């Protein structure tokens, strides 16, 4: 019964998030910049996957749990949830920026490839679904409720990161520059 309620809650949150994303997209379309993008716009600023892995590290959870200091544990969970959501939001923002950059570039392209466009659109759609799923689960469970959940979250993070990179690679005109910190 509880599982059913949870599934319904997740489904509803996904629906709300998708509606919000669609509304935002519709609201922004008239304001789209028609000028050609500059080279610096193509610099990918996706947050580091390694940072989220560190943030969700089971080693840290065990360390804080062993201390048995309730206020510290509470602060730890609260901050990890906040940072996880920040990471997710930044990934979504950057991917949305890259996609709108692609739309701007494509407007001026002579040879449009529908198959490649459809593939990219599919990746963006999948990205939105994975993003919404992750945000909902982090909100509902918190980032560390169970180890099994943590593994699924890390799997989803990997998927989200890969999709972000796939979107970036699809639109980039040149080899992508690496971010300065966190990539070493």
């Amino acid at each position: 019964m509880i599982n059913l309620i949870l599934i319904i809650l997740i489904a509803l949150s996904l629906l709300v998030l998708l509606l919000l994303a669609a509304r935002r997209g519709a609201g922004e379309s008239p304001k789209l910049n028609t000028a050609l993008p500059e080279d610096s716009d193509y610099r990918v600023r996706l947050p580091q996957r390694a940072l989220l892995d560190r943030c969700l590290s089971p080693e840290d959870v065990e360390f804080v749990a062993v201390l048995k200091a309730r206020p510290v544990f509470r602060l730890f969970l609260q901050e990890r949830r906040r940072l996880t959501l920040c990471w997710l939001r930044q990934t979504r923002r950057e991917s949305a920026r890259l996609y709108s950059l692609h739309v701007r570039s494509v407007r001026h392209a002579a040879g449009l490839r529908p198959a490649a466009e459809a593939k990219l659109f599919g990746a963006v759609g999948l990205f939105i679904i994975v993003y919404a799923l992750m945000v909902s689960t982090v909100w509902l469970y918190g980032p560390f409720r169970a180890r099994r959940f943590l593994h699924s979250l890390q799997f989803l993070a990997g998927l989200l990161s890969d999709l972000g990179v796939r979107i970036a690679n699809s639109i980039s005109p040149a080899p992508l520059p690496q971010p300065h910190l966190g990539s070493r």
Partner: protein
Amino acid sequence: MTSLDIDSAVDAAVRDLENRTLANIRGELTRLVYLSSTRDYNTGEYQHEGLAQRFGAEAAQRALARCHETAFHDLLYTSLAGLVGQLETYIESTGSERDKVLNSWRQLQAYRVLIPGTCDPLSADFFVTNVKLALEVLGSGALAHPGN
């Protein structure tokens, strides 16, 4: 000086800094505190007279910036337990009263100046959060009696 010359001067300055200075400083956090203290808070530029005399001002500046970023990066990806240990080592190295240092770091948030200028906001936020947590762990005294 050509760009190749400056690059090799920077590499040499980094080696010199690591071997002569940083090798003698105990603890990654202590090294990070040292490196960030060579930065002018008004201009954001690093200053080290000895290094500048030997390798030139630009090479010294870039070498310090590179070492600062490396030290920060290493600490950013250190576990929370590791960071707590580093913080203890640093407090010991100051020779000041432990509680005084803890309170001062908590109130003044001096650790914010440890972040390099090139750091992205999310990494900076993560670092600040981890230092805050490490301070709470040490301040709570829970580390002395884990599991009690």
